[in-house]
């Protein structure tokens, strides 16, 4: 990963967290739609597991530290999200948005259950189960808008990955 891609990834994650806090959470209400998780899934689906692992862990840790619950929960879940989406990267060219949304919903559900298990940090486990369906629909809807933008940005010359140079 080049420095330019790392800076762009950090900027994208921070922007996603700001929009999440300022727009998505107030509008979605109790339904746990997660824009940063969709971003991680979309990037991992477009670039593969290496970027997915790095971006998922970093974005999750940043989101953890910016919230009330113990650090590491979202880092762990979004790390898994990055791995899962990265593994599906080569096989999901047409339905990336739907898969990104579904995987993001799955990781959010897992994070919700983990927080419920840890104590009084997140929503109760029953609420996680109750809102899992609407959250998946919301995540897919957001992913349908976000995934094409992520793909277009990753294809831009400034952020395109350099081909590996092999020594003779």
């Amino acid at each position, binding site marked *: 990963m080049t420095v330019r891609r790392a800076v762009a990834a950090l900027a994208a994650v*921070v922007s996603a*967290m*700001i*929009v999440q*806090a*300022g*727009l998505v959470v*107030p*509008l979605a209400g109790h339904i746990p739609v997660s824009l940063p998780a969709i971003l991680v899934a979309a990037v991992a689906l477009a670039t*593969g*597991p*290496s970027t997915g*692992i*790095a971006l998922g*862990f970093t974005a*999750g*840790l*940043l989101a*953890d*530290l*910016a*919230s009330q619950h*113990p*650090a*590491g*929960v979202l*880092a*762990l879940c979004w*790390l*898994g999200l990055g*791995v899962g989406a990265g*593994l*599906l*990267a*080569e*096989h999901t060219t047409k339905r990336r948005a739907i898969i990104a949304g579904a995987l993001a919903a799955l990781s959010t559900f897992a994070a919700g259950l983990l927080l419920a298990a*840890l*104590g009084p940090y997140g929503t109760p486990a029953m609420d996680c189960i109750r809102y899992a369906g609407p959250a998946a629909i919301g995540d897919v809807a957001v992913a349908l808008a976000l995934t094409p933008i992520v793909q277009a940005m990753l294809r831009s010359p400034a952020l395109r990955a350099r081909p590996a140079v092999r020594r003779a």
Partner: protein
Amino acid sequence: MRRLTRRQRISAIALAVIAICFVTLDDAGGGLRNAHGGVRGAMGALYRSTDSVLGPTRRFVQGIPDVGSSRAEIDKLRRENTDLHRQLAASQAEAKSTAELNRLQLAADAGGLTIVPAKLIAFGPGEGFDWTATLDVGAGSGVAVDQTVTDGSAVVGRIIHVDSSSSVVLLAADPGSGIGVRDTRTGQLAVATGAGTAGFTLVPLDPSADLKVGDQLQTGPAGQSTYAAGLLVGTVIAVRASGDGTTQAALRAATSPTALDLVGVILHGGPNSAPRAVITPSGAEPATSPSAGAAQSAGHR
């Protein structure tokens, strides 16, 4: 499905272990409290600085489902606002009327007068005069021609025409109206002639009378004037001596003829009508006047 390379697998496992360590550390003793605080502070600053952009968008989107009900709410609030404005205006008018009524009551108590309150319902020329007003009380309320109209402290005019439920007042401001007045400082008698909104023109009966700016003039003398005695007419604002030795003065009216609303018609009473004690040599038994004695004996019977 592609598989993770060995390097990717090791990285993922290492980061997962680190994440679990973080969870354990932070959940057990809050070991990452400072890190939480730093990131929350930075993100909080970013949230606040971007809220000027995201806030209007959020409020717009949040308001879409309530567009219909918001319009109804706005209409309801507008109606309530109009009602409140109307109530406020009514309350102010009521407060003014209450103050005027209190003033009339005070005048009735102080002067021993019987006053009937009246509302001014029309204003303008009438009965051959320029300055007249119509009141909503008439003969049915005991109003009669030549009774004095007051606002509680000052003279307003006198009744010149009475119907069963209304009456016409010749305002003191009319140029055809002359009021017998007395200077409260010197006791000099004079005639105040109406001059419209400019007040009154004052001509003393004694051409050499001592008039000064600031002198107050009251209706009088009691019993000799058409008007009830003791009501304020105005204050001297200018004194002018003519070449022939006569003196004239300009008066500022004690009440504005164009701002009248609630007034009182003095039906009867006042200084001239009350029985009074006679003055006897010091040390002698006080006695009442023959008329008062007759009234007392009539009461005993």
